[in-house]
Protein backbone atom coordinates (compact mmCIF):
# COMPACT_ATOMS: atom_id res chain seq x y z
CA UNK A 1 0.00 0.00 0.00
CA UNK A 2 1.30 3.46 -0.90
CA UNK A 3 1.64 5.84 2.03
CA UNK A 4 3.18 9.27 2.45
CA UNK A 5 5.56 8.85 5.40
CA UNK A 6 8.59 10.52 6.88
CA UNK A 7 11.97 8.79 7.04
CA UNK A 8 11.71 8.25 10.78
CA UNK A 9 8.50 6.31 10.28
CA UNK A 10 10.00 4.40 7.35
CA UNK A 11 12.38 2.92 9.93
CA UNK A 12 9.43 2.12 12.23
CA UNK A 13 7.51 0.39 9.44
CA UNK A 14 10.62 -1.57 8.48
CA UNK A 15 10.99 -2.82 12.07
CA UNK A 16 7.27 -3.60 12.26
CA UNK A 17 7.19 -5.55 8.99
CA UNK A 18 10.43 -7.27 10.00
CA UNK A 19 8.55 -8.39 13.13
CA UNK A 20 11.11 -7.10 15.62
CA UNK A 21 10.44 -8.84 18.94
CA UNK A 22 12.31 -6.58 21.30
CA UNK A 23 12.77 -2.84 20.84
CA UNK A 24 14.78 -0.83 23.29
CA UNK A 25 15.61 2.82 22.87
CA UNK A 26 16.34 6.12 24.51
CA UNK A 27 14.78 9.11 22.75
CA UNK A 28 17.02 11.57 20.93
CA UNK A 29 15.95 14.04 18.28
CA UNK A 30 15.21 13.21 15.49
CA UNK A 31 14.92 9.48 16.10
CA UNK A 32 12.34 10.00 18.84
CA UNK A 33 9.62 9.67 16.21
CA UNK A 34 10.98 6.25 15.18
CA UNK A 35 10.40 4.73 18.58
CA UNK A 36 7.34 6.86 19.31
CA UNK A 37 5.51 5.11 16.47
CA UNK A 38 6.97 1.73 17.43
CA UNK A 39 5.82 2.18 21.03
CA UNK A 40 2.31 2.96 19.75
CA UNK A 41 2.44 -0.15 17.56
CA UNK A 42 3.48 -2.22 20.60
CA UNK A 43 0.71 -0.66 22.71
CA UNK A 44 -2.09 -1.31 20.22
CA UNK A 45 -0.68 -4.75 19.32
CA UNK A 46 -0.03 -3.90 15.67
CA UNK A 47 3.38 -5.23 16.56
CA UNK A 48 3.84 -8.10 18.98
CA UNK A 49 7.04 -6.91 20.61
CA UNK A 50 8.43 -6.01 23.98
CA UNK A 51 9.23 -2.32 24.22
CA UNK A 52 11.91 -1.57 26.80
CA UNK A 53 12.40 1.99 28.01
CA UNK A 54 15.90 2.65 29.27
CA UNK A 55 17.85 5.53 30.74
CA UNK A 56 20.54 5.94 28.07
CA UNK A 57 21.60 4.80 24.62
CA UNK A 58 24.29 2.68 26.21
CA UNK A 59 21.58 0.78 28.05
CA UNK A 60 19.39 0.65 24.95
CA UNK A 61 22.05 -1.30 23.11
CA UNK A 62 22.75 -3.41 26.21
CA UNK A 63 19.07 -4.39 26.36
CA UNK A 64 19.15 -5.30 22.67
CA UNK A 65 22.22 -7.47 23.23
CA UNK A 66 20.56 -9.36 26.06
CA UNK A 67 17.40 -9.90 24.05
CA UNK A 68 19.35 -10.98 20.99
CA UNK A 69 21.30 -13.49 23.10
CA UNK A 70 17.99 -14.93 24.23
CA UNK A 71 17.07 -15.44 20.59
CA UNK A 72 14.87 -12.40 19.92
CA UNK A 73 14.96 -10.23 16.80
CA UNK A 74 15.92 -6.83 18.13
CA UNK A 75 15.76 -3.28 16.86
CA UNK A 76 16.78 0.12 18.11
CA UNK A 77 17.37 3.55 16.66
CA UNK A 78 19.49 6.52 17.61
CA UNK A 79 21.39 9.51 16.32
CA UNK A 80 24.66 11.43 16.76
CA UNK A 81 25.56 11.79 20.47
CA UNK A 82 23.34 8.81 21.27
CA UNK A 83 25.18 6.60 18.81
CA UNK A 84 28.57 7.63 20.12
CA UNK A 85 27.46 6.95 23.68
CA UNK A 86 26.72 3.39 22.50
CA UNK A 87 30.19 3.00 21.06
CA UNK A 88 31.45 0.46 23.59
CA UNK A 89 28.43 -1.76 23.08
CA UNK A 90 28.66 -1.63 19.32
CA UNK A 91 31.82 -3.70 19.75
CA UNK A 92 29.93 -6.03 22.06
CA UNK A 93 27.23 -6.56 19.45
CA UNK A 94 29.60 -7.48 16.62
CA UNK A 95 32.13 -9.30 18.83
CA UNK A 96 29.27 -11.23 20.42
CA UNK A 97 27.90 -11.99 16.94
CA UNK A 98 24.47 -10.59 17.79
CA UNK A 99 22.47 -9.54 14.73
CA UNK A 100 20.88 -6.38 16.13
CA UNK A 101 19.49 -3.99 13.52
CA UNK A 102 19.67 -0.28 14.32
CA UNK A 103 18.48 2.83 12.54
CA UNK A 104 20.80 5.81 12.80
CA UNK A 105 19.84 9.27 11.71
CA UNK A 106 22.97 11.09 10.60
CA UNK A 107 23.35 14.22 12.64
CA UNK A 108 26.48 16.32 13.12
CA UNK A 109 28.37 15.86 16.38
CA UNK A 110 28.42 18.59 19.03
CA UNK A 111 29.87 21.01 19.84
CA UNK A 112 28.64 23.36 18.39
CA UNK A 113 25.34 21.80 19.08
CA UNK A 114 23.72 20.68 15.84
CA UNK A 115 20.58 18.86 14.78
CA UNK A 116 21.55 18.94 11.11
CA UNK A 117 22.99 16.24 8.93
CA UNK A 118 26.49 14.99 8.43
CA UNK A 119 28.01 11.53 8.57
CA UNK A 120 30.65 11.83 11.26
CA UNK A 121 28.49 10.11 13.90
CA UNK A 122 28.09 6.83 12.01
CA UNK A 123 31.36 6.89 10.09
CA UNK A 124 33.32 7.21 13.32
CA UNK A 125 31.80 3.79 14.19
CA UNK A 126 33.24 2.22 11.07
CA UNK A 127 35.69 -0.09 12.86
CA UNK A 128 33.15 -1.52 15.30
CA UNK A 129 32.35 -4.48 13.05
CA UNK A 130 28.86 -3.38 11.99
CA UNK A 131 27.47 -3.54 8.48
CA UNK A 132 26.49 0.01 7.45
CA UNK A 133 23.91 0.92 4.80
CA UNK A 134 23.48 4.57 3.71
CA UNK A 135 20.02 5.23 2.28
CA UNK A 136 18.76 7.91 -0.11
CA UNK A 137 14.96 7.66 0.12
CA UNK A 138 12.32 6.68 2.62
CA UNK A 139 11.44 3.71 0.43
CA UNK A 140 15.02 2.52 0.59
CA UNK A 141 15.05 2.98 4.37
CA UNK A 142 12.01 0.76 4.87
CA UNK A 143 13.20 -1.89 2.41
CA UNK A 144 16.73 -1.92 3.83
CA UNK A 145 15.60 -2.55 7.41
CA UNK A 146 13.89 -5.74 6.21
CA UNK A 147 16.92 -6.79 4.17
CA UNK A 148 19.26 -5.92 7.07
CA UNK A 149 17.52 -8.41 9.39
CA UNK A 150 18.03 -11.09 6.77
CA UNK A 151 21.68 -10.32 6.11
CA UNK A 152 22.55 -9.81 9.78
CA UNK A 153 20.89 -13.00 10.98
CA UNK A 154 22.55 -15.07 8.27
CA UNK A 155 26.03 -13.74 9.12
CA UNK A 156 25.45 -13.01 12.82
CA UNK A 157 26.76 -9.49 12.31
CA UNK A 158 24.77 -6.40 13.37
CA UNK A 159 23.59 -3.80 10.84
CA UNK A 160 23.12 -0.08 10.91
CA UNK A 161 20.62 1.51 8.52
CA UNK A 162 21.62 5.13 8.12
CA UNK A 163 19.58 8.09 6.88
CA UNK A 164 20.14 11.85 6.80
CA UNK A 165 18.63 14.14 9.40
CA UNK A 166 15.82 16.30 8.00
CA UNK A 167 16.30 15.51 4.32
CA UNK A 168 14.97 12.02 5.09
CA UNK A 169 14.11 11.90 8.79
CA UNK A 170 11.50 14.69 8.61
CA UNK A 171 10.79 14.55 4.89
CA UNK A 172 7.57 12.96 3.70
CA UNK A 173 7.80 10.80 0.60
CA UNK A 174 5.56 8.29 -1.12
CA UNK A 175 6.51 4.84 0.16
CA UNK A 176 5.14 1.51 -0.96
CA UNK A 177 4.59 -0.35 2.32
CA UNK A 178 4.77 -4.07 1.46
CA UNK A 179 2.24 -6.61 2.67
CA UNK A 180 3.10 -8.45 5.88
CA UNK A 181 2.64 -11.92 4.33
CA UNK A 182 5.09 -11.12 1.56
CA UNK A 183 7.64 -9.81 4.02
CA UNK A 184 7.16 -12.97 6.12
CA UNK A 185 7.90 -15.05 3.03
CA UNK A 186 11.10 -13.05 2.43
CA UNK A 187 12.25 -12.92 6.02
CA UNK A 188 11.80 -16.10 8.06
CA UNK A 189 11.82 -15.92 11.88
CA UNK A 190 15.18 -15.56 13.65
CA UNK A 191 16.33 -18.99 14.81
CA UNK A 192 19.86 -18.75 16.21
CA UNK A 193 21.83 -21.96 16.66
CA UNK A 194 22.87 -20.96 20.14
CA UNK A 195 20.78 -18.90 22.51
CA UNK A 196 20.71 -18.37 26.23
CA UNK A 197 17.53 -19.38 27.99
CA UNK A 198 16.93 -20.75 31.51
CA UNK A 199 16.82 -24.23 29.96
CA UNK A 200 19.94 -23.71 27.88
CA UNK A 201 22.45 -21.86 30.04
CA UNK A 202 25.70 -20.70 28.42
CA UNK A 203 28.40 -18.21 29.26
CA UNK A 204 28.78 -15.13 27.07
CA UNK A 205 31.68 -12.76 26.67
CA UNK A 206 33.93 -14.40 29.24
CA UNK A 207 37.66 -13.93 29.56
CA UNK A 208 39.19 -14.96 26.23
CA UNK A 209 42.88 -15.77 26.29
CA UNK A 210 45.31 -14.98 23.46
CA UNK A 211 44.90 -18.61 22.51
CA UNK A 212 41.33 -17.99 21.25
CA UNK A 213 40.67 -14.26 20.80
CA UNK A 214 42.55 -13.90 17.51
CA UNK A 215 40.45 -16.60 15.84
CA UNK A 216 37.20 -14.96 16.96
CA UNK A 217 38.23 -11.77 15.17
CA UNK A 218 39.48 -13.69 12.14
CA UNK A 219 36.06 -15.33 11.88
CA UNK A 220 34.26 -12.01 12.20
CA UNK A 221 36.27 -10.63 9.29
CA UNK A 222 35.78 -13.81 7.22
CA UNK A 223 32.02 -13.54 7.69
CA UNK A 224 32.09 -9.82 6.94
CA UNK A 225 33.80 -10.76 3.66
CA UNK A 226 30.75 -12.88 2.80
CA UNK A 227 28.47 -9.85 3.18
CA UNK A 228 28.91 -8.25 -0.28
CA UNK A 229 27.70 -11.38 -2.10
CA UNK A 230 24.92 -11.90 0.43
CA UNK A 231 23.73 -8.30 0.12
CA UNK A 232 23.59 -8.70 -3.67
CA UNK A 233 21.79 -12.02 -3.38
CA UNK A 234 19.20 -10.86 -0.83
CA UNK A 235 18.83 -7.61 -2.79
CA UNK A 236 17.98 -9.50 -5.97
CA UNK A 237 15.59 -11.73 -4.07
CA UNK A 238 13.91 -8.59 -2.72
CA UNK A 239 13.60 -7.26 -6.25
CA UNK A 240 11.93 -10.49 -7.39
CA UNK A 241 9.34 -10.21 -4.64
CA UNK A 242 8.86 -6.47 -4.30
CA UNK A 243 10.20 -4.98 -7.54
CA UNK A 244 12.98 -2.97 -5.92
CA UNK A 245 16.63 -4.02 -6.10
CA UNK A 246 18.76 -3.46 -3.01
CA UNK A 247 22.45 -3.62 -3.84
CA UNK A 248 25.84 -2.52 -2.58
CA UNK A 249 25.80 0.56 -4.82
CA UNK A 250 23.42 2.42 -7.07
CA UNK A 251 24.91 3.60 -10.35
CA UNK A 252 23.51 6.16 -12.73
CA UNK A 253 24.99 6.62 -16.22
CA UNK A 254 28.45 5.38 -15.25
CA UNK A 255 29.00 3.19 -18.35
CA UNK A 256 30.14 5.90 -20.71
CA UNK A 257 30.92 8.59 -18.12
CA UNK A 258 34.07 10.70 -18.39
CA UNK A 259 33.63 11.88 -14.84
CA UNK A 260 31.97 9.87 -12.09
CA UNK A 261 30.69 11.46 -8.90
CA UNK A 262 30.99 9.12 -5.93
CA UNK A 263 28.39 9.94 -3.29
CA UNK A 264 26.26 8.51 -0.48
CA UNK A 265 22.95 9.11 1.29
CA UNK A 266 20.54 11.76 0.04
CA UNK A 267 23.53 13.65 -1.34
CA UNK A 268 23.80 10.74 -3.77
CA UNK A 269 20.21 11.28 -4.84
CA UNK A 270 20.71 14.98 -5.57
CA UNK A 271 23.94 14.07 -7.41
CA UNK A 272 21.89 11.99 -9.83
CA UNK A 273 19.87 15.10 -10.73
CA UNK A 274 23.13 16.99 -11.29
CA UNK A 275 24.53 14.21 -13.50
CA UNK A 276 21.36 14.29 -15.59
CA UNK A 277 21.58 18.08 -15.99
CA UNK A 278 25.32 17.93 -16.77
CA UNK A 279 24.57 15.44 -19.53
CA UNK A 280 22.08 17.86 -21.03
CA UNK A 281 24.90 20.40 -21.07
CA UNK A 282 27.11 17.94 -22.96
CA UNK A 283 29.27 16.72 -20.05
CA UNK A 284 29.27 12.96 -19.73
CA UNK A 285 28.83 12.67 -15.98
CA UNK A 286 27.79 9.64 -13.94
CA UNK A 287 26.86 9.09 -10.33
CA UNK A 288 27.92 6.14 -8.22
CA UNK A 289 26.06 6.20 -4.94
CA UNK A 290 27.65 3.90 -2.42
CA UNK A 291 25.09 2.23 -0.21
CA UNK A 292 27.17 -0.29 1.75
CA UNK A 293 30.06 1.44 3.48
CA UNK A 294 30.89 -1.63 5.56
CA UNK A 295 31.68 -3.99 4.02
CA UNK A 296 33.11 -1.58 1.45
CA UNK A 297 32.30 -2.81 -2.08
CA UNK A 298 35.88 -2.57 -3.36
CA UNK A 299 35.45 -4.81 -6.37
CA UNK A 300 32.14 -3.29 -7.47
CA UNK A 301 33.57 0.23 -7.28
CA UNK A 302 36.69 -0.79 -9.24
CA UNK A 303 34.59 -2.33 -12.00
CA UNK A 304 32.19 0.58 -12.33
CA UNK A 305 34.82 3.31 -12.54
CA UNK A 306 37.03 1.36 -14.96
CA UNK A 307 36.28 3.48 -18.03
CA UNK A 308 36.15 6.90 -16.37
CA UNK A 309 38.72 9.62 -16.84
CA UNK A 310 38.16 11.28 -13.50
CA UNK A 311 36.54 10.55 -10.17
CA UNK A 312 35.11 13.14 -7.77
CA UNK A 313 34.32 11.78 -4.31
CA UNK A 314 31.99 13.96 -2.27
CA UNK A 315 32.18 13.47 1.49
CA UNK A 316 29.80 14.94 4.05
CA UNK A 317 32.25 13.90 6.77
CA UNK A 318 35.89 14.28 7.67
CA UNK A 319 38.57 12.28 9.42
CA UNK A 320 40.55 15.10 10.99
CA UNK A 321 44.18 15.14 9.99
CA UNK A 322 43.26 12.91 7.08
CA UNK A 323 40.54 13.12 4.39
CA UNK A 324 36.91 12.47 3.71
CA UNK A 325 36.21 8.86 4.60
CA UNK A 326 34.61 7.72 1.36
CA UNK A 327 37.53 9.33 -0.50
CA UNK A 328 39.94 7.17 1.51
CA UNK A 329 38.03 4.02 0.68
CA UNK A 330 37.79 4.79 -3.02
CA UNK A 331 41.52 5.48 -3.28
CA UNK A 332 42.22 2.32 -1.38
CA UNK A 333 39.96 0.37 -3.76
CA UNK A 334 41.85 1.65 -6.78
CA UNK A 335 45.41 1.32 -5.44
CA UNK A 336 47.35 -1.20 -7.46
CA UNK A 337 44.45 -1.60 -9.88
CA UNK A 338 43.92 1.78 -11.50
CA UNK A 339 46.68 4.04 -10.21
CA UNK A 340 46.56 6.52 -13.07
CA UNK A 341 42.90 7.45 -12.53
CA UNK A 342 42.79 10.90 -10.85
CA UNK A 343 40.57 10.84 -7.75
CA UNK A 344 39.50 14.24 -6.38
CA UNK A 345 38.35 14.44 -2.76
CA UNK A 346 35.72 17.06 -1.93
CA UNK A 347 34.26 17.89 1.45
CA UNK A 348 30.88 19.59 1.47
CA UNK A 349 27.79 20.07 3.57
CA UNK A 350 29.17 19.51 7.09
CA UNK A 351 26.63 20.27 9.81
CA UNK A 352 23.75 20.26 7.35
CA UNK A 353 24.88 22.96 4.92
CA UNK A 354 22.86 22.31 1.81
CA UNK A 355 24.29 20.38 -1.14
CA UNK A 356 22.39 21.25 -4.32
CA UNK A 357 22.69 20.22 -7.98
CA UNK A 358 24.78 23.39 -8.46
CA UNK A 359 27.22 22.18 -5.81
CA UNK A 360 27.89 19.13 -7.99
CA UNK A 361 28.31 21.29 -11.08
CA UNK A 362 30.93 23.33 -9.22
CA UNK A 363 32.63 20.07 -8.19
CA UNK A 364 32.50 18.66 -11.71
CA UNK A 365 33.83 21.83 -13.31
CA UNK A 366 36.69 21.93 -10.81
CA UNK A 367 37.67 18.35 -11.52
CA UNK A 368 37.38 18.79 -15.28
CA UNK A 369 39.66 21.83 -15.22
CA UNK A 370 42.50 20.17 -13.29
CA UNK A 371 44.68 17.39 -14.60
CA UNK A 372 44.97 15.85 -11.17
CA UNK A 373 44.15 16.85 -7.60
CA UNK A 374 46.41 19.59 -6.31
CA UNK A 375 45.05 19.57 -2.78
CA UNK A 376 44.49 16.76 -0.29
CA UNK A 377 41.03 18.14 0.46
CA UNK A 378 38.99 20.37 -1.81
CA UNK A 379 36.54 22.31 0.34
CA UNK A 380 33.25 23.25 -1.27
CA UNK A 381 31.11 26.06 0.08
CA UNK A 382 33.22 26.84 3.14
CA UNK A 383 33.45 30.51 4.15
CA UNK A 384 37.05 31.57 4.71
Amino acid at each position, binding site marked *: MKKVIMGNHALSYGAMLGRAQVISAYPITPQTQVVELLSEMCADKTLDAKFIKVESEHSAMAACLGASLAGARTFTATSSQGLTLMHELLHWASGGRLPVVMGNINRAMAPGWSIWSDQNDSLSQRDTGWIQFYCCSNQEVLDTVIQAFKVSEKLLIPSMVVLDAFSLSHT*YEVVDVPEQEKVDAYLPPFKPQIKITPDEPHAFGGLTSPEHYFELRYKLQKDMEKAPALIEETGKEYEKMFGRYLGLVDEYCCDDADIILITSGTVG*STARVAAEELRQEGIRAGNLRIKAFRPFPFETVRNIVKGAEKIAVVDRNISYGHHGMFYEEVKSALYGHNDSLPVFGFIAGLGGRDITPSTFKEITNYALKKKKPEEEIIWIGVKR
Partner: protein
Amino acid sequence: MIEIRFHGRGGQGTVVASKILADAISKEGNYVQAYPEFGVERRGAPVFAFIRIDNKPIYDKSRIYNPDHVIVVDPTLIEAIDITEGLKEGGHIIVNSEKKPEELKFPKKFKVATINATEIAVKHKLGTLAAPIVNTAIVGAVVKILKLAKIESVLEAVQEGVPVKPKDNAAAAKEAYEKS
Protein backbone atom coordinates in the same frame (compact mmCIF):
# COMPACT_ATOMS: atom_id res chain seq x y z
CA MET B 1 8.06 19.59 -11.25
CA ILE B 2 6.15 22.06 -9.08
CA GLU B 3 7.75 23.52 -5.96
CA ILE B 4 5.68 25.29 -3.31
CA ARG B 5 6.61 27.10 -0.11
CA PHE B 6 4.23 27.55 2.81
CA HIS B 7 4.58 30.42 5.27
CA GLY B 8 2.93 30.22 8.66
CA ARG B 9 3.59 30.63 12.32
CA GLY B 10 4.51 27.82 14.73
CA GLY B 11 1.35 26.18 16.09
CA GLN B 12 -0.94 26.96 13.13
CA GLY B 13 -0.57 23.56 11.49
CA THR B 14 1.45 24.74 8.49
CA VAL B 15 3.51 21.55 8.35
CA VAL B 16 0.33 19.47 8.64
CA ALA B 17 -1.11 21.46 5.71
CA SER B 18 1.83 20.42 3.54
CA LYS B 19 1.39 16.81 4.69
CA ILE B 20 -2.35 16.77 3.84
CA LEU B 21 -1.58 18.27 0.44
CA ALA B 22 1.09 15.61 -0.10
CA ASP B 23 -1.36 12.86 0.87
CA ALA B 24 -4.01 14.19 -1.51
CA ILE B 25 -1.56 14.44 -4.42
CA SER B 26 -0.13 10.98 -3.80
CA LYS B 27 -3.65 9.51 -3.90
CA GLU B 28 -3.80 10.53 -7.55
CA GLY B 29 -0.62 8.62 -8.35
CA ASN B 30 1.83 11.52 -8.42
CA TYR B 31 5.10 11.76 -6.55
CA VAL B 32 5.55 14.18 -3.67
CA GLN B 33 8.19 15.25 -1.24
CA ALA B 34 7.14 17.45 1.68
CA TYR B 35 9.39 18.76 4.40
CA PRO B 36 9.36 21.32 7.18
CA GLU B 37 12.01 23.96 7.61
CA PHE B 38 15.21 22.20 8.69
CA GLY B 39 15.44 23.51 12.23
CA VAL B 40 13.57 24.03 15.45
CA GLU B 41 10.02 25.38 15.57
CA ARG B 42 8.73 27.85 18.11
CA ARG B 43 5.10 28.68 18.70
CA GLY B 44 4.27 32.00 17.06
CA ALA B 45 7.57 32.34 15.19
CA PRO B 46 7.59 32.28 11.37
CA VAL B 47 7.76 28.71 10.06
CA PHE B 48 8.10 27.27 6.58
CA ALA B 49 7.04 24.08 4.90
CA PHE B 50 7.93 22.95 1.42
CA ILE B 51 6.54 20.55 -1.13
CA ARG B 52 7.75 19.19 -4.46
CA ILE B 53 5.28 17.55 -6.84
CA ASP B 54 6.06 15.60 -9.99
CA ASN B 55 4.68 12.83 -12.17
CA LYS B 56 7.99 10.95 -11.87
CA PRO B 57 10.23 10.06 -8.89
CA ILE B 58 11.81 13.08 -7.21
CA TYR B 59 15.55 12.70 -6.71
CA ASP B 60 16.46 16.26 -5.73
CA LYS B 61 16.86 16.30 -1.93
CA SER B 62 18.22 19.81 -1.69
CA ARG B 63 16.10 22.62 -0.34
CA ILE B 64 13.70 24.73 -2.38
CA TYR B 65 15.04 28.22 -3.08
CA ASN B 66 12.94 29.28 -6.07
CA PRO B 67 9.40 28.08 -5.49
CA ASP B 68 6.81 28.17 -8.27
CA HIS B 69 4.16 29.24 -5.76
CA VAL B 70 3.89 30.58 -2.22
CA ILE B 71 1.11 29.95 0.30
CA VAL B 72 0.71 32.39 3.19
CA VAL B 73 -1.16 30.80 6.08
CA ASP B 74 -0.69 33.83 8.36
CA PRO B 75 -1.20 37.22 6.65
CA THR B 76 0.69 39.12 9.38
CA LEU B 77 3.85 37.59 7.91
CA ILE B 78 3.53 39.77 4.81
CA GLU B 79 4.67 42.74 6.92
CA ALA B 80 7.25 40.73 8.86
CA ILE B 81 9.26 38.93 6.17
CA ASP B 82 9.71 38.90 2.40
CA ILE B 83 7.35 36.11 1.45
CA THR B 84 8.16 36.58 -2.27
CA GLU B 85 11.86 35.75 -1.78
CA GLY B 86 13.00 33.57 -4.67
CA LEU B 87 9.45 33.22 -6.01
CA LYS B 88 9.41 32.62 -9.75
CA GLU B 89 7.85 35.23 -12.03
CA GLY B 90 4.25 34.37 -12.82
CA GLY B 91 3.98 32.33 -9.62
CA HIS B 92 0.91 32.33 -7.44
CA ILE B 93 0.74 33.89 -3.99
CA ILE B 94 -2.22 32.44 -2.11
CA VAL B 95 -2.98 34.32 1.09
CA ASN B 96 -5.31 33.58 3.97
CA SER B 97 -6.95 37.00 4.09
CA GLU B 98 -10.31 38.73 4.12
CA LYS B 99 -8.92 41.30 1.68
CA LYS B 100 -9.23 41.31 -2.09
CA PRO B 101 -6.05 40.22 -3.97
CA GLU B 102 -5.39 43.72 -5.36
CA GLU B 103 -5.51 45.23 -1.86
CA LEU B 104 -2.40 43.28 -0.91
CA LYS B 105 -0.21 45.27 -3.33
CA PHE B 106 2.18 42.56 -4.47
CA PRO B 107 4.28 43.18 -7.61
CA LYS B 108 2.35 42.63 -10.86
CA LYS B 109 4.64 39.76 -11.90
CA PHE B 110 2.88 37.46 -9.40
CA LYS B 111 -0.67 36.09 -9.50
CA VAL B 112 -2.34 36.83 -6.19
CA ALA B 113 -5.37 35.03 -4.76
CA THR B 114 -6.97 35.28 -1.34
CA ILE B 115 -9.14 32.92 0.68
CA ASN B 116 -10.67 33.82 4.03
CA ALA B 117 -9.60 30.57 5.65
CA THR B 118 -9.78 32.06 9.15
CA GLU B 119 -13.50 32.77 8.74
CA ILE B 120 -14.11 29.27 7.41
CA ALA B 121 -12.12 27.69 10.26
CA VAL B 122 -14.01 29.71 12.89
CA LYS B 123 -17.32 28.77 11.30
CA HIS B 124 -16.46 25.07 11.53
CA LYS B 125 -15.12 25.52 15.08
CA LEU B 126 -11.57 24.46 14.25
CA GLY B 127 -9.12 25.52 16.93
CA THR B 128 -10.16 28.49 19.07
CA LEU B 129 -11.43 31.96 18.15
CA ALA B 130 -8.05 33.40 19.11
CA ALA B 131 -6.08 30.68 17.31
CA PRO B 132 -8.19 29.05 14.60
CA ILE B 133 -6.66 26.09 12.77
CA VAL B 134 -6.84 27.10 9.13
CA ASN B 135 -4.72 24.45 7.44
CA THR B 136 -7.47 22.26 6.00
CA ALA B 137 -9.28 25.27 4.53
CA ILE B 138 -6.00 26.46 3.02
CA VAL B 139 -5.40 23.09 1.37
CA GLY B 140 -8.94 23.14 -0.08
CA ALA B 141 -8.26 26.50 -1.70
CA VAL B 142 -4.74 25.60 -2.88
CA VAL B 143 -5.71 22.45 -4.79
CA LYS B 144 -8.44 24.37 -6.61
CA ILE B 145 -6.40 27.45 -7.52
CA LEU B 146 -3.28 25.50 -8.53
CA LYS B 147 -5.25 22.55 -9.97
CA LEU B 148 -3.18 20.09 -7.95
CA ALA B 149 -5.77 17.49 -6.97
CA LYS B 150 -9.45 16.72 -6.89
CA ILE B 151 -11.37 17.80 -3.79
CA GLU B 152 -12.31 14.15 -3.20
CA SER B 153 -8.64 13.30 -2.71
CA VAL B 154 -8.28 16.15 -0.23
CA LEU B 155 -11.35 15.06 1.72
CA GLU B 156 -10.03 11.51 1.87
CA ALA B 157 -6.61 12.76 3.03
CA VAL B 158 -8.22 14.95 5.70
CA GLN B 159 -10.42 12.11 6.99
CA GLU B 160 -7.40 9.82 7.26
CA GLY B 161 -4.73 12.23 8.40
CA VAL B 162 -6.34 14.76 10.73
CA PRO B 163 -6.64 13.38 14.26
CA VAL B 164 -9.06 16.05 15.60
CA LYS B 165 -12.54 16.78 14.14
CA PRO B 166 -11.93 15.07 10.78
CA LYS B 167 -15.50 15.77 9.57
CA ASP B 168 -15.40 19.50 10.39
CA ASN B 169 -11.96 19.76 8.83
CA ALA B 170 -13.21 18.07 5.67
CA ALA B 171 -16.18 20.46 5.56
CA ALA B 172 -13.81 23.43 5.90
CA ALA B 173 -11.62 22.13 3.06
CA LYS B 174 -14.68 21.66 0.87
CA GLU B 175 -16.05 25.12 1.59
CA ALA B 176 -12.68 26.75 0.82
CA TYR B 177 -12.47 24.71 -2.40
CA GLU B 178 -15.89 25.89 -3.49
CA LYS B 179 -15.17 29.53 -2.64
CA SER B 180 -11.86 29.62 -4.53
